């Protein structure tokens, strides 16, 4: 466990760095000079700290969602954006926006998470019907399903002039995070903690339905719990900062290579690494083209693709 402590220290370091990166001058010096009352303090509390918190919460939650899905689907390519969960959540938000434009946030969230849950359950049902269980079929089916839902969402968004909302949900971007506009992410954090409490059940589910039943556990119950967690986390992340893709794919695979799939052991690392990678990508995105920003989704795409290529080429047989 000392290694994990080291990881936490590294994350804290990244977080501090993240807080002090930006266009306006916020530094220890400027804060002290202004006596903690002036503009720098305000920027710190209103924008910088919320942004860093949002990065950590969203990054860890998405990575953990990937782990849970990979256990439930028993496939290494599963994550919210390869099994239709993310697309379904977007469609859910869109439908609420069209049908009940002034619905309060909890209602929107429930609708989107409910949609995500339904579609992910449908995905699992389709998989059960397929006799050909090649590992590659699983993400293909998921991406197809997501594509169909995305097409419907795009059509609706086009018709009702909501393309901009759809784009916001699709691309993870933390530049708009302010105090009062990210706190929903704590719900995702709570669910991540819940997932940790039930970690053993997800490990068991990863060994299959028969194995789970043999140990006297209710397989359907475990799957339902996992799907609820993943659906709500995905919906929360999409509506607060936009979808963060591939993180749930790459991080669980990296951790699995190092530590294996005992979820109880892996989950702290998954959360830590997920948060760390998103933080680092966001910092890099703010630095490379300063004073402009490269959205974190784009940076993440580059980093994650490189990591994924490494995983594929290194352990080809096990991943595919």
């Amino acid at each position, binding site marked *: 466990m000392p290694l994990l402590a080291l990881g936490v220290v590294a994350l804290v370091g990244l977080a501090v760095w993240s807080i002090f990166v930006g266009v306006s001058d916020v530094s220890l010096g400027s804060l002290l000079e202004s006596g903690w009352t002036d503009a720098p303090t305000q920027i710190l509390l209103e924008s910088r700290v919320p942004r860093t918190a949002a990065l950590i919460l969203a990054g860890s939650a998405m990575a953990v969602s990937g782990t849970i899905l990979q*256990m439930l689907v*028993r*496939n*290494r390519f599963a994550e919210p954006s390869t099994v239709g969960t993310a697309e379904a959540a977007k469609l859910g938000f869109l439908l609420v926006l069209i049908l009940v434009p002034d619905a309060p946030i909890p209602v929107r969230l429930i609708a989107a998470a409910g949609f995500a849950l339904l579609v992910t359950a449908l995905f699992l049902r389709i998989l059960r019907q397929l006799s050909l*269980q090649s590992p590659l079929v699983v993400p293909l089916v998921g991406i197809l399903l997501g594509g169909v839902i995305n097409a419907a969402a795009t059509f609706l968004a086009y018709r009702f002039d909501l393309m901009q909302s759809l784009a916001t949900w699709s691309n993870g971007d933390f530049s708009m995070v302010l105090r009062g506009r990210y706190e929903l992410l704590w719900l995702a954090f709570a669910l991540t903690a819940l997932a940790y409490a039930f970690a*053993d*059940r997800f*490990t*068991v589910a*990863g*060994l*299959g339905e*028969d*194995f789970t*039943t*043999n*140990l*006297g*556990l*209710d397989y359907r119950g475990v799957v339902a719990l996992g799907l609820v967690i993943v659906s709500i986390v995905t919906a929360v992340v999409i509506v607060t900062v936009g979808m963060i893709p591939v993180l749930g794919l790459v991080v669980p695979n990296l951790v*699995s290579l190092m530590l*294996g*799939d*005992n979820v109880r052991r892996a989950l702290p690392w998954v959360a830590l690494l997920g948060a760390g990678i998103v933080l680092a990508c966001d910092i890099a995105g703010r630095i490379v083209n300063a004073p402009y920003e490269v959205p974190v989704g784009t940076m993440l795409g580059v980093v994650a693709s490189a990591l994924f290529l490494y995983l594929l080429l290194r352990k080809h047989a*096990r991943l595919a």
Partner: protein
Amino acid sequence: MIVARNLTKAYGEARVVRDVSLDIPRGGITSIIGPNGAGKSTLLGLLSRLLPATSGSVRVDELDVASAPSDVLARRLSILRQDNHVTARLTVRDLVAFGRFPHSRGRLTEEDRRRIGEAIQYLGLDELADRFLDEMSGGQRQRAFVAMVLCQDTDYVLMDEPLNNLDMRHAAGMMKLIRRIVDDLGKTFVLVLHDINFASIYSDHIVAMRDGAVVKQGPPSEILQSQVLREIFEIDIPVHEIDGRRIGLFYV
């Protein structure tokens, strides 16, 4: 004793297991044999609540399998099915520890840890305890699963084709191991076997199935008879006695 009464499993029109009534005695090894599609694995699934029966009942001692709480049953009976792709990357020790789940609900006590260590040692897996399952050979992995079942510490252990994909040495080793567990610890094993000679040599009781029904049961000496085997498999198998064991020459 496992008692099945009028057990039927139907998928639509197809009845895979048909009106099976069966008593599996406590203690010893009971082998289920029969041709492909006889319903052996399905029967095992029904006996162990992995599959719900279309009609009929199963009792394990005083527990009714359909209505007993799953976690209570998990302390009485365990089942190992052949799952060819183990996708999860677990160490042997982690896997064996999960055998204690029905007892400890994931919070391992000192007693649990002792039993995990014992099971690993009993199966001769000490050296491999921290290896990942996906880095082991088929025979080693099979032993790890048996260690897990041993850790689950149930009176009854059901295994679906435990010799699948094992070479001669590992197959014979596995059967000897099962015999040793039964004799040392007084457990009851129910095995689905393909090789009638393994069933003949190692079991106390053989159940023969065909077309979803039990056609014959009894001690190996009664089942390993040419006319009985013809009834089960529809081929002529000469049976010879070698060193006091009845061996069916189904190769010729």
